[in-house]
Every structure is written in structure tokens, then in C-alpha cells.
């Protein structure tokens, strides 16, 4: 930890502290709308980080991360509704279920040498057939949806995840902060080095004694487990779950756009990407509404334009360039990720 702080430029530390401070006091100044946008940003920043572990760190492309969000959401919600198990307990079941799903995909793919695009297709396939499965699973409402009871409360109950948006904001902020700390730590351990080696060149990594199967499995399982937390949050924040929504391909794409635009493989990329995408997409929707225009799909078009712009002008994402401009790069890291 000391070494980490010593290796980070002063400006970066100050900026991080200021950012953390602003985020901590934000609910005191924000209205309900701003708060809901902030929660959404944190939600995507968190999920982007989870996805980034797999793709950004280890180079394994998942296009089906909605699978883990959905499983996490459904497992915790079902345990809560049917058995009264509180989310802080149910979450561990959700994490285990997601890890098991990730491990199943990983074993199938990595044992049989399926990589790259074909691996990505496999992740889509799993998300899709899970969606179809849940459509017919009446125990959790099938395609008609699954609803958590909403009760009016006087107090915020953090352990039961029942309360005001402000409480959900702080829960999501804590999760995002924890994910950031976890990823920072991971990248500086042997695991992080091995993941990056596999991402850069799996053959060379294996020749250096790295059990590539084991470390790729670890990346998938860690990423899936992290995503489960976002699923549990989703279930208790929105209180309704529809397989068509939560497992859909477009959800998976939304998850990965942030880190791609922000900068895959970097620590701040997923966060920057989530801010940029959510703020701009919501801004555009608001703007259109203000003008009284009703254009369906404008958000998707906007996402497409953002993708194009980043791919053409900033192929490594926004963060590496931003970090360089702000002088936030760390001296002893080769990759210009500044964090």
C-alpha cells in the first residue's frame, strides 16, 4: 500500500482524494434526478470493473456478462421472496451461483481450446439460453417478471437493502470503491502479472511456467463473482426482474461499452467510461424530452457514435490519453494506464 502511494504522482493522489470527497457528500446537494443518474454511473462503473478483470486484465472477451447480473439478481431475490433470506446472506449464494456459471463456461472453452471470438460467442450463448430458461421458470415468475415486495419504511435498513435512494447510492459507492481497491491490488500481485502476460501472449506466458488454464479460469470466476454483487443491487434497487431485460444481449453490451470507451485493462477506464456514457446518454434523452422530440433508439445510436469516435480517435480508450494530459501516469508502469 505504501509502495503504491509512493509510486503514484502527487497530483493523482490529490485528484483521487477530491473525487472521493465529492462522491461522499454528493447526496447532500443532489436532487432526486441527479442522485438516480449518479447511482446509474456507479452501477456501470462497478460492472465495467468486473468485466475489465476478465477482458482488460486477462484478455478473455465476454459478451454475455448480463448472465452473471441476472443470476445474481434472481438468486438473491428468490431467496428473499420465497425464504425470507436477507440479501446480505443471499448475496453469497448469488456469488457462488455466478462463479459456478463462469466456471462452467470457462471449463468448456478453455479445456477445448476455444478462444477469442468463439469464446465470446459461447458467453452469448450461455446468457441467451439462461434467459430462455428463466422465461419458463415459473418459480420466479417466468416471462411475466419477478417482483420484490415494496414497503414504505421510516428507516433505511442497509442489511435488508430496503431504503431510500440515498442509501442505495452509498451502497453502490462502497461497492465501486471496494472493486477499485480490489482491482488495484489484483494488478500488483502475481495473479495480475500472470493475467496480463496471458492477455499479451498466451504461448509466451505458458513457456514461463504459467498454468494458463488455471489463471484464465480464475479471471472468469472472479469477474463473475464480482458481477453477482451488481445483480443483487439491481434486484433490490429496482424491485422487479424480467428475463427479457436482465439477461438481454443489449444489457451485456451496455456493460462493456464503458470500459471499452474508458480504456480496457486500465483501472480508471471503466469508471471514466461509465461517467461519460451515462451522463451524455441521459443528457441527450433529457435534451430530446425538453424539445418535445420522441425518437426511439436515440440512446443506442448515441452509443454507436461514441464507440466509433473512440475507436477512430482514441483506440486505447479515453483514460490513457486523459491520464497523460493530466500528468497522472505512474513512473514504473510500462502500460500507459496511469493506474
Amino acid at each position: 500500500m505504501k509502495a503504491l502511494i509512493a509510486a503514484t504522482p502527487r497530483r493523482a493522489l490529490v485528484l483521487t482524494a477530491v473525487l472521493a470527497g465529492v462522491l461522499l457528500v454528493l447526496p447532500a446537494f443532489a436532487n432526486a434526478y441527479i442522485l438516480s443518474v449518479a447511482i446509474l454511473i456507479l452501477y456501470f462503473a462497478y460492472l465495467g470493473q468486473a468485466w475489465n478483470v476478465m477482458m482488460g486484465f486477462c484478455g478473455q472477451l465476454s459478451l454475455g456478462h448480463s448472465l452473471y447480473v441476472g443470476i445474481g439478481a434472481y438468486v438473491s431475490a428468490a431467496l428473499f421472496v420465497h425464504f425470507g433470506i436477507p440479501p446480505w446472506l443471499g448475496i453469497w449464494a448469488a456469488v457462488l451461483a455466478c462463479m459456478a456459471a463462469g466456471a462452467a463456461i470457462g471449463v468448456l472453452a478453455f479445456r477445448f481450446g476455444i478462444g477469442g471470438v468463439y469464446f465470446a460467442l459461447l458467453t452469448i450463448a450461455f446468457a441467451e439460453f439462461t434467459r430462455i430458461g428463466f422465461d419458463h421458470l415459473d418459480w420466479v415468475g417466468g416471462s411475466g417478471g419477478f417482483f420484490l415486495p415494496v414497503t414504505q419504511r421510516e428507516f433505511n435498513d442497509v442489511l435488508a437493502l430496503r431504503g431510500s435512494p440515498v442509501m442505495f447510492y452509498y451502497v453502490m459507492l462502497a461497492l465501486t470503491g471496494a472493486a477499485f481497491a480490489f482491482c488495484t491490488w489484483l494488478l500488483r500481485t502475481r495473479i495480475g502479472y500472470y493475467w496480463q502476460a496471458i492477455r499479451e501472449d498466451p504461448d509466451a506466458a505458458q513457456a514461463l511456467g504459467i498454468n494458463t488454464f488455471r489463471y484464465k479460469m480464475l479471471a472468469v470466476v472472479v469477474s463473475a463473482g464480482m458481477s453477482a454483487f451488481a445483480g443483487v443491487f439491481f434486484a433490490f434497487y429496482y424491485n422487479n426482474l424480467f428475463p427479457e431485460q436482465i439477461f438481454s444481449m443489449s444489457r451485456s453490451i451496455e456493460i462493456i461499452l464503458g470500459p471499452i470507451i474508458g480504456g480496457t485493462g486500465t483501472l480508471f477506464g471503466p469508471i471514466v467510461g461509465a461517467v461519460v456514457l451515462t451522463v451524455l446518454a441521459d443528457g441527450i434523452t433529457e435534451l430530446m424530452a425538453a424539445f418535445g422530440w420522441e425518437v426511439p433508439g436515440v440512446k443506442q445510436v448515441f452509443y454507436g457514435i461514441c464507440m466509433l469516435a473512440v475507436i477512430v480517435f482514441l483506440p486505447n480508450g479515453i483514460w490513457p490519453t486523459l491520464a497523460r494530459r493530466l500528468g497522472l501516469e505512474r513512473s514504473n508502469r510500462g502500460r500507459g494506464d496511469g493506474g
Partner: protein
Amino acid sequence: MAAEGLLSVRSVSKSFRGLRAVSGVSFDVGQGHIVALIGPNGAGKTTCFNMIAGAFEPDAGEIHFAGQRIDGMRPDQVCLSGIGRTFQLVKPFAGLSVLDNVIVGALRRNRQVGVARRKAQAILERLGLAEKRDQPASALTLPDRKRLEVARALATEPRLLLLDEAMAGLRPTEIDQMVAVFRRLNEEHGLTIVLIEHVMRPVMALSREIHVLHHGELIASGSPDEVVRHPAVLECYLGAEAV
């Protein structure tokens, strides 16, 4: 020889879609020896390496290393048994810094990144790459990438180092520097080395024994002086008329 041999390759063969790349090749490498594998293009040298390093499984034959049978093992298992290798077509971790590249190798024996970093630093100094430690590996010139390959393999602290044309593309003075590095590693640490080279300068300077491959078969073995006078070697390198 076989009794003290660190590495023993016993009549290994490998075919690719009917093309016999290596056929019934046997040789031994003694502990602390430096041995060269030479031969014209397509003679099967790299295929031999890949079988020793676990990248290919031999169709027939056995490979033993330090009393352990290693043919058919995965490359990472072969590395763990104590064999380090470089790739002919260099494979740097392009997005990582030079230092981080070597740290990955050093983590094989040291779980702590801090310890691995110090080891990696020492190896970079030994190979003259210390000043470039913070550059991304993608920014290196080809000779430096070759050095990086060697540095990374050495960081795994192997007993046997397989060098696949690690000195190709280097200038004569650079070759002499590398030769000096390998000689010191060999003398001070007892590192056993098997090298594939086209450039004869390092081969003659380093090797105690040379094996010549041609069309996948071993056609001659012996000391450098013997091998360069061997009729079969002269024939395959210079043509039958020269003999």
C-alpha cells in the same frame, strides 16, 4: 554420457500432415554443457525445441530431463521442471514494460512481486537492458527484443536454457557480448544451454558439442572441429561437389 546427461532425447519423431519434420533424432546434453543444434532451414531444429519445451508432443520417442520424463507435458510444466526457452519469432508482452516482462518470468520462483522485481532488475542489468526497463516492450528494436526473450527465460531460473536463434540479427559485437553473458552463466551458475543458430560465430565460440540436423535426421555429432570437417555436413551445407 547418458548416465550423467541432464537432457536425453531418445529417437523422437514428429510429422505434420505427412511431412516428417523430425525423424528418429537422439542426443544427450550433459549437465553444464553448451550444445548447439545446427542445420539448414527446415531441418527440424525448432520442431525439436518445441518437443522438448512441450509445445508439441512427439509422435514417437521419449524425452527425459533431470530424471523425469517430460515429453507430452504442457509447456508450463516443462518450465516448472527447470527448462527455460526463447522463441525464434520473439513473443514479448508488448503492452507491458521491459521490467514487467521479466518480472513475469521471475514470479515463477518468487511469489512476491517485490522480490521478483529485484531479480528482474539484476537480470536486465546483466543483459544490458536496465536503461530501457520502463519502456514498453513494443518500443524495443529487434536485437533488444531478442535480449528480452533471453532475460525473461533466465528469470525463471532454469537449469537448462533453450535458445532458438537468440543471436540472429545481432551485430558481431553484440553477438560477442551475448556470448560472454552465456559463458559466464554457464561457468558461474552451471547453466546448461542448448542453442539453435544459423550464425556460426556464437556456435563455434560457445559450444562444446554440435549436432547437425538435415531433413529431420541427425547426420553428424561431435566437437565443433570434427563437425565442420564432417563430409556429410559439408555436403548438406555446400553441395556434394564440394566434398
